[in-house]
């Protein structure tokens, strides 16, 4: 039986069901207990499962991640939360030097199946330190898997898949989608495979590669342009590492034109990597430049409304990109 849930509701449900199903699973982080999380993602779980399984930690992201790594090494399945992606930096050492390399450096002797939930992205009034996205750093580090759902269905399915995955997974949640996205979610148990993109909309004229909060924006732009007879195919990457090259390549080979849309900064964002893969492996199929419609190369999203607005990619920008590419 499926019914509609919000994106954040799907996350809370997935956490609750997995805590129920597998007693090796436990959550740890700042303010995930009685307060239920800054955005309510863990609401009700502390009451139901107790402090042992929904643990409020000291304010120390490095300790949160290393506590998860170590306890996963004795057979537990920790799900640490990083309250804001902006505050993952104190834990980068633990994530990249420890988690990402533990299996490799021990030739498979040790591994750390942890799922790091990271709340990211720009939203009303987040400002410089409550709006960041840093998926790019972690995509550069093999040993880690990186995902970001765009729908409530994927939010639940990817989270369950991540917790059951034998490797460390960074599960990025876009805070702007928490309550703005609502779709059908099965009540029961299911997973969305890590490493598989989803074609959200078929189209013959061009391909839009996107993920996270830019999926609804791209879908709307594609819908608008469809009225003008331009059919854009929208691919929701869902997993950023490892990238689903097959889906990306087959879509672009079909449409022969491609644009990449992301909220993250342009320089060294995933758009560059995708563009390079296409130039290497689908050069002959390309009938136009590969466009990138992205956030600006500024340090972070400033708080004051005019600057925040100037950051976030809007439907109009995507529409303009489609028009430019279609006309090419």
């Amino acid at each position, binding site marked *: 039986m499926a019914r509609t849930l919000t994106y954040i509701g799907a996350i809370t449900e997935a956490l609750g069901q997995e805590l129920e199903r597998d007693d090796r699973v436990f959550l740890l982080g*700042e*303010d995930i*207990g*009685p*307060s239920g999380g800054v955005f309510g993602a863990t609401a009700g779980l502390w009451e139901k499962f107790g402090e042992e399984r929904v*643990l*409020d*930690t*000291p*304010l*120390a*992201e*490095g*300790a949160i991640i290393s506590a998860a790594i170590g306890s996963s090494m004795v057979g537990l399945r920790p799900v640490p939360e990083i309250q804001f992606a*902006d*505050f993952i*930096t*104190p834990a980068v050492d633990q994530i990249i030097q420890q988690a990402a390399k533990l299996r490799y450096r021990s030739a498979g002797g040790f591994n750390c199946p942890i799922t790091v939930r990271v709340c990211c992205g720009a939203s*009303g*009034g*987040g*400002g*410089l*330190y*409550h709006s960041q996205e840093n998926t790019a750093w972690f995509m550069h580090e093999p040993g880690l898997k990186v995902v970001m759902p765009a729908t409530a269905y994927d939010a639940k399915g990817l989270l369950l898949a991540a917790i059951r995955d034998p490797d460390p997974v960074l599960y990025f949640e876009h805070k702007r989608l928490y309550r703005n996205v609502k779709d059908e979610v099965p009540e029961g148990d299911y997973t969305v495979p890590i490493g598989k993109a989803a074609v959200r909309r078929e189209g013959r004229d061009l391909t839009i590669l996107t993920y996270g909060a830019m999926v609804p924006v791209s879908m709307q732009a594609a819908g608008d342009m469809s009225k003008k007879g331009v059919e854009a195919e929208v691919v929701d990457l869902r997993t950023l590492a490892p990238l689903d090259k097959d889906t990306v390549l087959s879509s672009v080979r079909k449409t022969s034109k491609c644009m990449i849309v992301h909220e993250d900064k342009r320089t060294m964002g995933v758009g560059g990597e995708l563009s390079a893969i296409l130039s290497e492996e689908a050069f002959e199929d390309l009938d136009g430049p590969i466009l990138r419609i992205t956030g*600006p*190369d*500024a*340090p972070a999203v*400033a*708080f*004051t*409304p*005019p*600057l925040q*607005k*100037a*950051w976030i990619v809007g439907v109009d920008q995507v529409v303009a990109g489609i028009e430019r590419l279609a006309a090419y």
Partner: protein
Amino acid sequence: MASKSNRAVLEPEIEKNGHSTELQLSLYRMLMKCRMCDEKARVLFKQNKFAGGNFYSAVGQEATEVGTAISLRADDWVAPSHRDWTANIIKGVPLKFCFAQLYAKATSPDRGRSSPAHMGYPPLNIITPASSIAGQLNVGTGVALGLKRLGRDTVVVAYFGDGATSIGGFHEALNLAGVHRLPIIYVCQNNLWAESVPLRLQTALTDLSQRAVAYGFPGVSVDGNDVLAVYDVAQTAIARARSGEGPTLIECKTYRWYGHSEIDPARYRMKEEVEAWKKKCPVQRFEKALFEKKTLTDAKKKEVTDEITREINEAVDFAEQSPYPDASELMDHIWA
């Protein structure tokens, strides 16, 4: 500037005879100013005058900042965090800029870039804070290292909460300060909670001043709601720092009356705990003492509050009338 004149007025007398009437009245004035500005900020937030974001009220904790910052010189540095908007007021930042900050207007010191409560002011050496907890301790300690190297007698006062003492940056900052006996005062506002996390889940200690033992310099715990007690401890620490004797960790035991932020109902706290602490209000408590000593009268109090009200109204008008920055500023100040 307020901080300058404060100094001119206060210092000599302090040396002579401790808590002069003048000092006590200026402490009172400043406590009242912080309280009224903070409560005003909360009202403005609820009235949606802010451009969204959030506000971290320090109501209940005023004595920790007033007692430690009131005698600072204009050239002394302050490293504030998210709950230290009022530190700007005490250091002497014109009130209009403090409210422009809340409104994120182009007239705020950072042209609206940081969130409302994360305020700094370069002309008075108040470091514009990142939100990253404890980051100001690291940067502030670096400033202290630089000041020492330059042979200045300038000091740094860094503010932070109990929660900040759990993170690695706290340790690295205080350890370095200990090694080089840096001119810095670490003021921990221990309000028993890091957002919703109680002290028992943050540390095995009850007195966070104990953390100083690990760094080889003094740690003091003080009643953070007793402004004179805080002032005295701060004077000793500041004198130590100025004379090159090194850092001090001051733990102020205090409490925030309201939620972690204005959007936090703070259901995780017991009513009884909140009520008990409200009875220990640092402003009323000091006011009562001043009335008893006849240092304060109803007339004088009215004069003080009227003056502050007038100042606040002017500042709010300034903020209201100020424009937002232009979107074209997006790419300014990334590089020189």
